[in-house]
């Protein structure tokens, strides 16, 4: 139960009520005071003072002064009248309750409104500040733009002047040209007439004037370029310079930022080619490079070029043991076998190569043509001409523009027809 504070004292004027409330030693802060239009409460636990006022007051303008163990209220009446007493006398409990609640609600509403009003003013302030900064920036930008515009106009004027000078210059030059032409033509005409009068051979006279007129035009030219033309050196003697490029595997342009990626890719490719079939135990005593199918292929190619076909076959054999998925190895070995006249082996190898070259794409066109040609040759040498012709036609299908293939196919056709006729 709260302790009621009842020792208050008050006095009034027509417009205001002055209420003095002693606090029994308790300290008061503004938070402890609650005031609405007709209700006043001071609650400092455990003390409580409550008053339902006689008449409504203007609670926004009323003040409360806290000090000296006392709260001094200055309440401004809404209607100037003298109150009979500070509080309503016959206030029953319900009315009191209702008034209290009402007061609380009103107070809350007021608080809300105040908060909103504050927010609105804050926003307006912000907006104003923003507009001010924008104006300042705009002014700055405009200043810079103006400077640029001035530059531009100045420069444009200079340009126009220069252009006009050019035009005038051209006109002047063309006028000069015409004048000089006129000057040249007059004496020419005079001379022409003279020649006619002197009854010279007409051809000579005409040719002379023609020569003169040509030279006349030459000297007219302001830049006297024609004179210079007579002194131009003859066209250079044609020659070719052979060029070597810094090697690059990729067809795209070289970029520094991509170099690392490209190196990695190439490395992986080389690794992949090396790793297949590398678990053959009897290869341990070979040197590192001899375990690399690419190196072996190169070695085989060199030996083929030098005519050492058996050596080349050995190299290719070893390479195949290391990696039997490279079609080029079989292709080259087929060529070796052809030279060694191991025709069945040549056919086998060409077939294996073609198998490995299965996705028939433009990239392996060359390889496929070679495979067909080698197999075809082998068949023909075994006198299986129809199979040979089939292979040649397949090769022609891939590469229709190859003249040598066409000739060979023709030869085979003739041979077939010849044997058919004779049999």
């Amino acid at each position: 139960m709260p302790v009621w504070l009842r020792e208050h004292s008050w006095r009034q004027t027509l417009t205001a009520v002055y209420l003095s409330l002693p606090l029994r030693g308790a300290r008061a802060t503004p938070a402890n005071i609650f005031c609405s239009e007709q209700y006043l409460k001071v609650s400092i636990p455990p003390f409580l003072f409550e008053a339902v006022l006689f008449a409504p007051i203007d609670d926004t303008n009323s003040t409360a002064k806290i000090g000296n163990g006392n709260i001094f209220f200055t309440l401004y009446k809404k209607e100037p009248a003298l109150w009979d007493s500070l509080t309503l006398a016959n206030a029953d409990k319900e009315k009191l309750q209702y008034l209290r609640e009402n007061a609380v609600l009103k107070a809350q509403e007021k608080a809300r409104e105040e908060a909103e009003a504050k927010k609105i003013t804050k926003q307006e302030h912000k907006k104003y500040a923003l507009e001010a900064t924008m104006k300042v920036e705009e002014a700055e930008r405009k200043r810079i733009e103006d400077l640029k515009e001035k530059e531009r106009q100045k420069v444009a004027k200079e340009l126009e002047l220069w252009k006009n000078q050019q035009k005038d210059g051209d006109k002047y030059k063309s006028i000069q040209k015409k004048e000089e032409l006129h000057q040249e033509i007059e004496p020419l005409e005079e001379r022409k007439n003279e020649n006619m009068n002197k009854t010279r051979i007409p051809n000579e006279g005409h040719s002379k004037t023609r020569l003169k007129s040509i030279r006349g035009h030459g000297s007219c030219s302001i830049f006297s370029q024609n004179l210079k033309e007579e002194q131009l050196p003859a066209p250079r003697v044609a020659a070719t310079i052979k060029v070597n490029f810094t090697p690059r595997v990729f067809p795209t342009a070289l970029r520094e930022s991509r170099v690392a990626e490209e190196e990695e890719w190439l490395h992986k490719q080389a690794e992949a080619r090396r790793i297949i079939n590398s678990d053959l135990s009897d290869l341990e005593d070979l040197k590192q490079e001899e375990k690399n199918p690419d190196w072996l292929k190169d070695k085989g190619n060199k030996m083929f070029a030098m005519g050492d076909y058996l050596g080349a076959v050995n190299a290719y054999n070893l390479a195949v043991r290391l990696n039997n998925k490279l079609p080029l190895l079989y292709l080259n070995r087929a060529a070796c076998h052809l030279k060694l006249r191991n025709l069945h082996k040549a056919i086998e190898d060409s077939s294996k190569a073609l198998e490995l070259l299965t996705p028939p794409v433009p990239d392996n066109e060359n390889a496929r043509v070679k495979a067909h040609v080698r197999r075809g040759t082998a068949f023909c040498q075994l006198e299986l001409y129809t199979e040979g012709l089939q292979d040649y036609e397949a090769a022609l299908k891939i590469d229709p523009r190859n003249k040598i293939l066409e000739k060979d196919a023709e030869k085979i056709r003739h041979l077939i027809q010849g044997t058919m006729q004779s049999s």
Partner: protein
Amino acid sequence: MSAALGAERPQVVSHVQQALSYTVFDCKWVPRSARLLCLGSAARGTGVLQLYELHGARLELLREIEKPKPIKCGTFGATSLQQRYLATGDFDGNLNIWNLEAPEIPVYSVKGHKEIINSIDGVGGLGIGEGAPEIVTGSRDGTVKVWDPRQNDTPVANMEPVQGESKRDCWTVAFGNAYNQEERVVCAGYDNGDIKLFDLKTMSLRWETNIKNGVCSVEFDRKDINMNKLVATSLEGKFHVFDMRTQHPTKGFASVSEKAQKSTIWQVRHLPQNRDIFMTSGGSGSLHLWKYEYPAQRSKKDSEGSEMGVAGSLSLLQNVTLSTQPISSLDWSPDKKGLCVCGAFDQTVRVLIVTKLNKI
């Protein structure tokens, strides 16, 4: 750093912008006039040549010429000042020389290359330098050929890959060292980063190097003097300036390099009126204006006593971003200092004026 202060720096002012209805690959000033030429490829796969004249704040179209194949590059370098014939290279490998007054039939025509002609340069014309007028073309088929307009069908010099060598695209060519009637040098840049210098007097390779990025553009600071400086620009935003006065037997020419932009540097062009100032145009649509400063001593002796060049330093005078697409072509006007035209892949050609170049 140079003494280019804030208020005194050259400004790049965009004077006129012209939207085009085709992709412009090259733009050139017609010498001794306020006219410019735009070369490119229309959407339907034909070549377009447009001749514009500068009128105040706009460009007026004087002529439009259509050709069967898209045109990649052009030059006025090998014609006389009266004739002003344009030499063009197109997507099919044809080199044509046109008289713009009568463009139906070319004055000279040859199918020079098997693939697109990427770059063309001319020397000996326009009253500059001495010697025979010649045109050099560089193509995707890996060859660089030098043509004389007086000789039909065959080039006077052919720089081609060795038999069996896989070819690399030649992206750019430039003439230089044409200070008398015999001397001449061709510099070619390739997509694998090679730069090769061919001497046409001795018909041999004089120097080669690799700058580790595909070479987009090479230019000597002047064609008609003893070769002084060579600028080579490349992918990845780098460019190199070589001092060409002193060639070391093993180390070649001294150079300084700069990484200017994050994107490819498509073109470099020297100011005709001042050979130490040049502009680079980039793939991000920006232009950078540079000045080269010579070192105190241009050459020094190395440990074996042979002469070695010393490269100078570069300073950036100004940069400006004009477009979101690469600026692929750039040309200074030989008649008015600071006037230049640039063409970008956003189908616009812009006429720019660079101010305050006199104070550099």
